[in-house]
């Protein structure tokens, strides 16, 4: 028995010794970039009714069909992700269809798939195999189907919280490729505005969060002197959800005299942290939140978050900024709109702008090529402009592919509500000069297209 097994292994080893791996010679799979079509150049509003015959998946004479893959069941955050995201897409399509759609066709979110947290790749593969949708929308907590969508050349638009959006040229997040651990000016500037001098930085031990902590620490190392603040405590080893509590860390921060906490955690973790700060008599310490842009959540925990600063990834609702797309968003969505509703709206707008730029003889490849040639997509001023010629790439360690803008749009919690902070409704983004070596004063900016 032993001899037979050993012989089997030897034979197998001989066979595989001459083996290689599939695709080693080939380039990494990515969708074609094609010849760029300058966005908006070839078309006018009047042209959009042009209905040329198009032989492409999910496209009929009357409709362009899309599928969404979103997390609805088993969402560990407990927030509404999938339904809110789908609502945003539906609302956007309703808005565009009310204006006549595009290329003589209505935009339709024909299928809404629930990846149930664990079935993302399966749902992506099913979507590709069924071959009945032009493009996909994605808002999930796992993105294991990224390669399946990208390999199939499916234009995919979605909620970018995943590193998988990087390096795949047919995937478009509401932000460009994320940088986990990049140095930035925003948080040191916030410390400067509130007069904080000693900062604590906390994050989970999971990779993205830990790297975010490293990035914040590095940011203060670079700009802390200008801001008059330094990091006196940091911990990127906390258990997800803070299940073991965070009391020792808060005690250490208290001893160190921390007067501002910057954290890389979800909203539930932020609440646990706020409770512990409160418990140890540090309730007045200002926290900066990356993921707590939820009106209902903050209203119900008003006292815990009073004075805190939240930085959403788009112009917060509380800025009465101008812009057609923002106005339409409020017109076409219900009062229970949320962060994910806006993300869905923006994702749908990316799809629309790609179709529009591709022209009346559009297909998937042309849409992808047109979008990838776009250098300043801003969803009508709702997000910091994205340069898709470079922002498909992870900018970690490669400044050449970082956005040329460094802007953010903060709000502060006051009496359980978000209120504009530092920026104005006319100019809701605070933008730094990327060329400036020090911590310059940000300039209030608007990206709403003129006219």
């Amino acid at each position, binding site marked *: 028995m032993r001899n037979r097994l050993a012989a089997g292994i030897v034979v197998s080893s001989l066979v595989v010794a001459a083996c290689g791996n599939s695709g080693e010679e080939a380039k990494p799979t990515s969708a074609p970039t094609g010849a760029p079509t300058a966005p908006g150049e070839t078309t006018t509003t009047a042209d959009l009714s042009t209905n040329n015959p198009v032989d492409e998946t999910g496209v009929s004479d009357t409709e362009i069909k899309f599928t969404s893959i979103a997390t609805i069941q088993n969402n560990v955050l407990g927030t509404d992700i999938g339904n809110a995201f789908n609502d945003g897409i539906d609302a956007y399509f309703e808005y565009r269809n009310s204006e006549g759609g595009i290329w003589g066709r209505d935009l339709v979110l024909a299928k809404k798939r629930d990846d149930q947290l*664990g079935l993302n790749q399966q749902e992506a593969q099913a979507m590709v195999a069924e071959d009945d949708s032009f493009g996909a929308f994605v808002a999930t907590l796992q993105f294991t189907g990224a390669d399946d969508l990208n390999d199939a050349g499916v234009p995919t638009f979605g909620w970018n919280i995943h590193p998988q959006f990087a390096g795949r040229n047919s995937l478009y997040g509401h932000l460009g490729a994320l940088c986990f651990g990049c140095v930035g000016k925003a948080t040191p500037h916030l410390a400067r505005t509130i007069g904080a001098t000693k900062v604590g930085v906390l994050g989970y031990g999971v990779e993205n969060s830990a790297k975010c902590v490293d990035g914040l620490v590095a940011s203060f190392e670079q700009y802390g002197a200008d801001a008059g603040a330094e990091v006196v405590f940091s911990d990127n080893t906390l258990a997800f959800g803070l299940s073991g509590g965070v009391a020792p860390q808060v005690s250490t921060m208290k001893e160190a005299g921390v007067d501002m906490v910057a954290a890389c955690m979800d909203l539930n973790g932020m609440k646990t942290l706020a409770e512990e700060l409160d418990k140890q008599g540090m309730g007045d310490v200002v926290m900066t939140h990356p993921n707590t842009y939820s009106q209902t959540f903050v209203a119900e925990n008003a006292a815990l978050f009073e004075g805190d600063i939240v930085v959403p990834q788009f112009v917060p609702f509380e800025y009465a900024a101008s812009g057609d797309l923002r106005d339409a968003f409020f017109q076409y969505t219900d009062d229970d709109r949320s962060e994910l509703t806006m993300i869905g709206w923006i994702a749908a707008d990316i799809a629309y702008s790609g179709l529009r730029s591709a022209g009346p003889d559009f297909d998937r490849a042309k849409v992808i090529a047109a979008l990838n040639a776009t250098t300043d997509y801003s969803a009508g001023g709702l997000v910091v402009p994205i340069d898709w010629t470079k922002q498909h790439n992870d900018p970690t360690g490669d400044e050449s592919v970082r956005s040329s803008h460094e802007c953010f749009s903060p709000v502060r919690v006051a009496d359980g509500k978000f209120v504009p902070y530092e920026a104005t409704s006319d100019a809701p983004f605070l933008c730094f000069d990327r060329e400036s070596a020090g911590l310059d004063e940000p300039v209030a900016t608007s990206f709403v297209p003129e006219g």
Partner: protein
Amino acid sequence: MLEDFIRSVFQGVPVGAVYALIALGFTLTYKTAGVFNLAFGAQAFVAAAVHWELHVHNGWNVAVSAAIAVLVVSPALGVALDFVLFRHLRAASSGARLVTTIGLLVAIPNITKLVLRFTRHPSTGGARGLFSGPDVVYRPFGDAYPITRDELVQLGVVVVAGLALGAMFRFTHLGLRMRAVVESPRLAELGGVNSARVGSFAWALSSAFAGLAGVLIAPTYQNVDAANFFELVIAGIAAAAFGSLVSLPRAFAGALGLGVASTYLATVLPTNSVLARGLKPSLPFVVLFVWVVIAPGLRGQRDVADPLSGVAPPPPASAADERSRSLTIATRGFWSVVGVIVAWAVFFAINDFWLKRIQVLLAVGVIFLSITVMTGIAGQISLCQAAFAAIGAFATTQLAVEQGMSVLVGMLLGGLVSALVGGLLAMPLVRIGGVWLALATLGFALFFHSVIAQLAVVNGGVSKPRTPRPLIGSIDFAADRAFIVLELVVFAIAATIVVLVRGGTTGRFLAALRGSEVAAASIGIGQWRSRVTAFALSAGLAGLGGGLLASAQQSVNYDVSFSPQVGLFFVVVVVTLGSRSIEGALQAAFGFVLFQPLILERALPWVINHIQPFLHVNAISGLFRDILFGLGALTFAKHPEGILEFQKRRSLNRIQRSIDRRKQQPTEAGSTP
């Protein structure tokens, strides 16, 4: 230093009180029901979910909703579990009862979600504390040592409950009767004890305790989720193990010690360090593993008093081995035809989606063969097979991507690495056996999950590398159908190895050990070598399957494919459908991979929509898959060969009887004058 420690005591005791609630409840269940109840957390989740629905969602008074959850729903659940399940399992092996509780662990939360239409909400919806939550803070020992009202309540409840339970066991007839029923229900009945009633009361009491733990602990987390309770139960078990599952004071002390230790570590370990990142979240699992391995009191402990339950009758021969020659020919003919049809469908008919599912199925089939070796042949329950598979998957990917090695070589080496880890892990564990081995393997799985799988050097960092497909000469296995052929070859080799081991010396030794360790030892069969071999082989197969799965999916989807919860589900599916045969593993893989997309999402809705005009069904929730397999595992004690093998035996017997009758009729007719 001293100040740090004192502060850790103050901050760690509330954490320890949470562990103590679980540890006391777990010990209570073990002492009064004799069951190593891994579903304790699921019972706690039910109470927390009911409390949330009534209090937070429907606005009921907090005391009323908590009382209903703890005093009505939880005891009723306990009585139901006893009535339907556990009173019938008193003479079953501890392993069978453990599998039953794992099945409940999978089924109960999903049933709860389905019945209550329960979904998680952020902390606005968390089950708020009973006494105004955490915002009321007391500072009896100064500003440095604050304590919230919630924490005080938890601590108070733990102390009172511990004293009450201790008093009940020590001073009341009821406590004595409960212990007697656990020791031997038949002997207790001879003494005039109604063992059924006492058993039901014991289950009601332990379930109420689980409910109390659930309602009190829920606010600790910001949303109500069964997974939170599962991890807490492991910490609670680690504490309960200090008391060898029978001593309430030692369990209590163990829980507080664990809470203080974890807080102290968080204080003194250097922040941002690998050590802190690894040790802080995994401390309870490390403690559990180490304690199970080193604690002298746990070695050789017999957790079932009934002497007959320690001797398992030899497993029946498989139905295939017992059928007649003609039936064997007919069966093989039938399956050959089915095989040809399936092969035709795979290679000529089905689309990419189903091809990818079949790729996953075959890879998972290889992983499930590892459970066939571990549970079906060796008779042991290992709960870390998914971790072994992950080791294989990560090793395969890293060797192929970082070292530029052939992915096939990577798979083989990944399997060998897994086998090595499995063998090393087995060495201290095989002498323990039974539920303790299962627990230690669960501790290892959770440690792997919390520490090893999070290391960038293992998982490839933020931008996960793609696992390549193999290339042999000019044959490129990037194409899905070609890869399926490769998987079939690998599965056939793995299955052959399993069959050879089962029929060889090691397999026979394992069968003897499974029947009776004492009897096996008396004829010179040592358990160490055979079981370590089985463990290593099982881990190696899991690792090979993991590498194959990574190549099939072209990435290591750790959270989706290899997490500890997925590993528990592996065991549930395999023991439900058949852990003793190759076809059982394949059927289990079919159930795991295809039951939801094929049966629940397509076949059943199609049937429902075509047999009646009133109700239109798009897809049936995936919760049903988990519920069905979870409930299926409950049959393990009665049908350890698996449901499908049992049904196959029944069907073959029926057919054989029918054939025999037909043969007999002409003879009888011919003999009639």
